[in-house]
Every structure is written in structure tokens, then in C-alpha cells.
């Protein structure tokens, strides 16, 4: 059992929770994730560890409410428990001093981008962070990102805040300005990562994406998280979650992510009906 220490709605549908998990907190590195199961009837979902405090023995998770499990998770209060948390999983981000690094985060993906930006900054890189959201109200972690970046650029799709447009356009501007980027990290919705990877490819800028395929056990046992990278099948959980963005088959990833659309809708409806009935 893992105790919820703190819960904050960062925006209407994006939630941050701090959970007691001392061993994971001690061991985790940037880029790694956990899978959690709220109760015995729950499903196992992977969430990136955004931050940790080994002294307090806590880890921080950020998630967007997209379905039944995340909605249920958002209803846990301080002092409630999560039944199972397994981690830290996946390869940590390979952090070194590359020179100049651009870290691009979109939507809830900013939560995943944050620890990477922080680690890159700590390793001595010049960090240019680009964060974006559909609209101002759902933009998260601006202050935190600012603290770990040499430069922070913000965009919103509707122009309600920062640059009006997509993060890819902001990155294009950075490249056009003559900034020499040694590496780009792109974390966010699949279409965004695909566009960013396509953008950097002609410039030969190494681009790492963090993938979020469906997982069950997340220890390499089931293969639900199969992704195709450079024509080879890889497991998101044990071979990833980070891969060379220029090699990833994003179309396959998108279609596999849609595998349970109907069931997900049904589960959410049932859950809401049950909640309303109480």
C-alpha cells in the first residue's frame, strides 16, 4: 500500500500526486516510470516519475484525466492509498553534457520533460525548453521548467499564451535563428513527437522521444507495448521508454494506442454512473 501524501490539480484535468514509495524514491533516475494499480480490480497503468525526494521517501506523478483509471486516481485524497506501485521501470535517460539541448514538452508530456531538463541542466548542458499546450488554462509546470532551463519558450495552439502555434514551429524558429542544437528531447502527444522528429531529421539533430504504449506487466513479460524502431520490434517497457525519434514507426504506435477505445469509453461511463449513484 502506498500512501498519497499530497494531491494538486495543476489544471482542470491535469493532476499531480505525491506518493510515499521510499525505495523507488531512492533508486529512480530521470526518464524512468512506475506502473500502478489503484485497487485489486484496477488495471495497471504506467506513469513517468516526475520527481522524487529520497529524504521524504516520496515520488511525484503527474497525469491527465483521460479514462476511468486516471479519473479514479484523481479522486484519491491525501491519506488515501494506492494498492500497488511497481518501479522504477525502463531505462533512465542517458544524461551527459551534449552541449546545447532542446527539451520539448507538450500537454501532460511536460511532466515527463521536466526531470529530463533538470538532469540535463545539472550535467552542464545549455537547456532550451519549449513547452506547449492547447490553451493557457491547461499549461503546466511553467515555473518549474523555467528554473531548470537557460531559456524557456512557451506556445499555445490557440494563442491564449506565448507563441500562437505548435511547439514544432517554436523549435523551427530556434533552429532558424542559428542555434546549434546537439540533441532534442520530444515528449508529448504522438502526433507532436512525429512532427518534431520529422522536423529535426533533415538537420541531423539526434532526437529522443519518450513513448507511452499500452502496458500490462511493464517488466518485459507481455509485449503489449511493442513498438517498431528502425524496422525492429522493441518493447516500450524494457527497451525504452526512450527511443531514437527518427526510427520510430509512429503510425503503428497510434493505431496500437487505439486498441481499446471502445472498452475505455465503456469503463469510464460505467464508473461515472456508479459514482453518480452514490
Amino acid at each position: 500500500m502506498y500512501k498519497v501524501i499530497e494531491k494538486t490539480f495543476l489544471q482542470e484535468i491535469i493532476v499531480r500526486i505525491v506518493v510515499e514509495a521510499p525505495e523507488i524514491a531512492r533508486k529512480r533516475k530521470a526518464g524512468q516510470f512506475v506502473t500502478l494499480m489503484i485497487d485489486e480490480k484496477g488495471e495497471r497503468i504506467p506513469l513517468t516519475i516526475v520527481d522524487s525526494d529520497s529524504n521524504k521517501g516520496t515520488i511525484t506523478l503527474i497525469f491527465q484525466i483521460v479514462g476511468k483509471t486516471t479519473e479514479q486516481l484523481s479522486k484519491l485524497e491525501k491519506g488515501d492509498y494506492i494498492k500497488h506501485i511497481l518501479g522504477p521501470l525502463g531505462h533512465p535517460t542517458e544524461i551527459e553534457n551534449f552541449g546545447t539541448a532542446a527539451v520539448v514538452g507538450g500537454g501532460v508530456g511536460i511532466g515527463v520533460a521536466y526531470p529530463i531538463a533538470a538532469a540535463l541542466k545539472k550535467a552542464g548542458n545549455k537547456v532550451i525548453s519549449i513547452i506547449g499546450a492547447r490553451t493557457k488554462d491547461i499549461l503546466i509546470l511553467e515555473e518549474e521548467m523555467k528554473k531548470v532551463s537557460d531559456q524557456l519558450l512557451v506556445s499555445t495552439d490557440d494563442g491564449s499564451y506565448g507563441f500562437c502555434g505548435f511547439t514544432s514551429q517554436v523549435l523551427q524558429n530556434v533552429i532558424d535563428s542559428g542555434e546549434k542544437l546537439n540533441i532534442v528531447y520530444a515528449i508529448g502527444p504522438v502526433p507532436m513527437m512525429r512532427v518534431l522528429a520529422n522536423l529535426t531529421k533533415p538537420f541531423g539533430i539526434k532526437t529522443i522521444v519518450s513513448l507511452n504504449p499500452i502496458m500490462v506487466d511493464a517488466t518485459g513479460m507481455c509485449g503489449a507495448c511493442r513498438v517498431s524502431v528502425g524496422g525492429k520490434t522493441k518493447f516500450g517497457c524494457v527497451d525504452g521508454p526512450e527511443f531514437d525519434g527518427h526510427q520510430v514507426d509512429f503510425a503503428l504506435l497510434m493505431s496500437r494506442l487505439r486498441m481499446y477505445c471502445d472498452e475505455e469509453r465503456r469503463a469510464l461511463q460505467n464508473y461515472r454512473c456508479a459514482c453518480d449513484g452514490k
Partner: protein
Amino acid sequence: MKRGGPCKIIGVHAMENKEKTVTKEKKEKVPRQAMPEQKPTERIHNFNEVPYGYTKELALAEASRCIQCKKPSCIEGCPVDVAIPAFIKLISEGKFIEAAWKLKETNALPAVCGRVCPQEDQCEKLCILGKKGDPVAVGRLERFAADFERESGDIKIPKPASSTGRKIAIVGAGPAGLTIAGDLVKLGHDVTIFEALHKAGGVLIYGIPEFRLPKAIVDAEVNYLEKLGVKIVLNAAIGRLKTVDDLFKEGFHAVFLGVGAGAPVFMNIPGENLSGIYSANEYLTRSNLMKAYLFPEYDTPIAKGKNVAVIGGGNVAMDSVRTALRLGAENAYIIYRRSEVELPARKEEVHHAHEEGVQFKILHNPVEYIGDENGWVKQIKCIRMELGEPDDSGRRRPIPIKGSEFTIDVDTVVVAIGTEANPVIPRTTPGLETNKWGYIVTKDSTGLTSREGIYAGGDIVTGSATVILAMGAGRQAASAIDAFVKAKN
């Protein structure tokens, strides 16, 4: 529980003889007692266990068949040396609980073994009665005794041995790990099992379906081990949360690796990553561990295909295809590249699958998967095979027949062609020798690895095998570890 159902079974008349002093000749006349089971037409609509198990009467009749050999060869066939004639004698005397205790002296999981062991290749194969007729149904009797004890609630917990002060870590709560944990805790050691999943049992929990091994039985056997004093830490992925070397730093004197061969194998043919194509591990884990067959009561979904093809011919393939039927498949196929004779699954499982209406496409092999506009599998392109000369395994090699390709319409596919070693532990344990397939190399039958104090057993050493062989490996490593930690200052 489910026992005591209707038993219109041959040999009921034989029960009348059970009280009589039977001579050897008379014993042989009692036929092998069949086990009552759910009708195929009913059971394909539920996940309840297929056989009901013996009634007391059937168990007594079957136990009376054992001729109590002076030099019983059946025991030689048992990887964990169960005292077979002794427990059967107790059953024949009506001492059912005592029979269970006798079993538990050498077998930590009798209710499991009575269900999933391939007895026909082990104890029953060597039974002397089998030479002329049918061997004693050792497995069914084992199951009966273990079930009787569990359902009676009269579970004896042996007195703990005095503590040796030695700490032993077991990695993986599957059959090997559970067996060795039981053995070592009885010897007075302080035993902790580390399990990556959120439930103990390994393949018994995630792999073998409810209709073949009810999960309540696994839970009860795990619970028994905990009562013996075994500590189980769930959600602990060794190699990630902590390494094997961290365990030594935490004060463990020896480590046993029973992590299984958990990584699924695919064929690497075009279209294999289409939606609707599962590894057997994923399909069975969703259904068994996560209870997806009860969706939406449980949150994990699973594709409930109408036309489901399972690739492979082993026990896991049979478990998958029979799960597909129970999830509502109208057509459930086994696609297997050799002939029915070579099917590696237990005969009983193949028989059950036939009874339930599984369609066997033997001498077929998939060469490509074809998807629809949404990336969901809609067809398998198969090629017909013929058998050539025997290969390394001694089985006749399947050879594709040129130009024989054709397609089968499907909406769900389960690839059940085997598993391989998960590399996480070897990668994070310096000096731990593995072979070219990634399995851990052991020096001898004790399971000692290339590292002092680290032992291994089960599928991570042998590659995919059976529950009972993993348990046998756990048993053998137990005595070696016992000697090792006692010798340590």
C-alpha cells in the same frame, strides 16, 4: 466445493468391494476411475474448473488399485520425490487429511501439482499397473487429498524449526521459488520472496487459466507458505528496484533466482504488430491475472474476438484457445506447423480442446498478417506444410509446400510459440554467467551459478518447461543452499 457432483462413472460398482480385503488379483480388476467433469457444451460458457475432482467414493476406489510396490518406481518419476504409495495408502484407509500431510512433506503445492503435472510422463508412466492396463491415477488422488484438506479447513502448520539466523532471498514467486521457500523455511531459515507482479504464484497466477487451476487454490497454497513463515514482498522488480548485489548488502546470505523465462517470442513476420495480435503471455495475463474476462467489473480489457487463431501447439496454446472460446469466439483455431502427433501439449489438454470445438489447422504456418484500414488484424496468410526428415529434436521437420498459401479470416491472434529469458537480472548482476540464449548457467544439479551464493532454477536455467520441473529444481537447490549458508560464518 465442486466435488460431489453427479458421477455416472464406470467402476462405481467397484466401490462395493472397497471394504473387503482385496487380493492383488482383485485390485487389478478395479478399473481406473474417471474424474467427473463439466460438459463441454456448458463449460465453454464459463471459466469454472473443468473437472470436479474425485468424490470420496471414487478416491477410495482408485486408491484401492495401488498395489503398494515394495520398490515403487512411481517415485522415481516424481521430480519432488512425493511418497506416492504412502499417501495413496492413507487415502485407501480413509485418512484423507493425513494423506495431504504426507504429500506436503515433500511437495509444497500438491493441489497445484495434482492438476497441472504431466503425470502421464512421470509417476503414472512408471506405475507397474500401466504395463498391462491403466496406471493408478496418482494426479487425481493427489488433487483429491489436497482439496480435501483445504476444504476441511483443518490445515496443519508444522512446528517451525529453531531459527538458523540465516537470511535467504528468493527472486520470483513462481513454482520454483515457492517450493524452495517452503523447503528452506522448514529448515529454520529466514526466507523472503521478492515478486515483481502484484500477486504471488508466477505462471500459476498469470498463465494457467482459472478453468484449469482456480486461483483460489494458488492463493491458499501461497497462504500456507506464509503461515510457515515465508515473507513475500510484492511489486519488487529485482534488477530495477534493487540488484542481486543489493540483496547481499542488505544481509541476505544466499539468493535463489527463479525468475522464469518470461519474455514472449514472436515469429518476426510481416504484420505481427497489428492491433488484435497478442503474445500468449499478454492474452493470458490479461485474462487470468487481471481478470479481463470479468471486464468491466475489473478494469483491464481484452479483445473478445469472434474468429481467434492461436499459433502454436503446446499447453500454453491450448490454454489460450480455450480462453478464446470462453470469451465468446465462434471460431477458435489452433495453427500448428507439424502434425497432430507432434503436438507438444498434454494429451488431456488436446482432448479437452477437441471436445470444446477447437478447430485444429495442423501442418499450417502463418507467413503474414493482413490488417484492415484501422491497423487491426483481419486475415492470416498461412502456408501448408509437410513433414520431412527428423530434426535435432527428433521430430520430423516441417517443410513449407511451395505455392500453397491461403488466408484465414481472423480478428484476434495469439502467438503461443514459446518464451525466452528476460535479460534484466543477468544484465544487472556482474559475473553471472549466461548461455547464448540468455539462460543462467548452473554448475550442477544444485543450481549453483557462476557467482558464490547465487543459485538458480526453473525456466531461467532450462528454458520453458513444466511447473513440476521448476519445483524439482527448487527442491534440489534448497539442500545446496542449506549447506552453503550453514557453512558460512
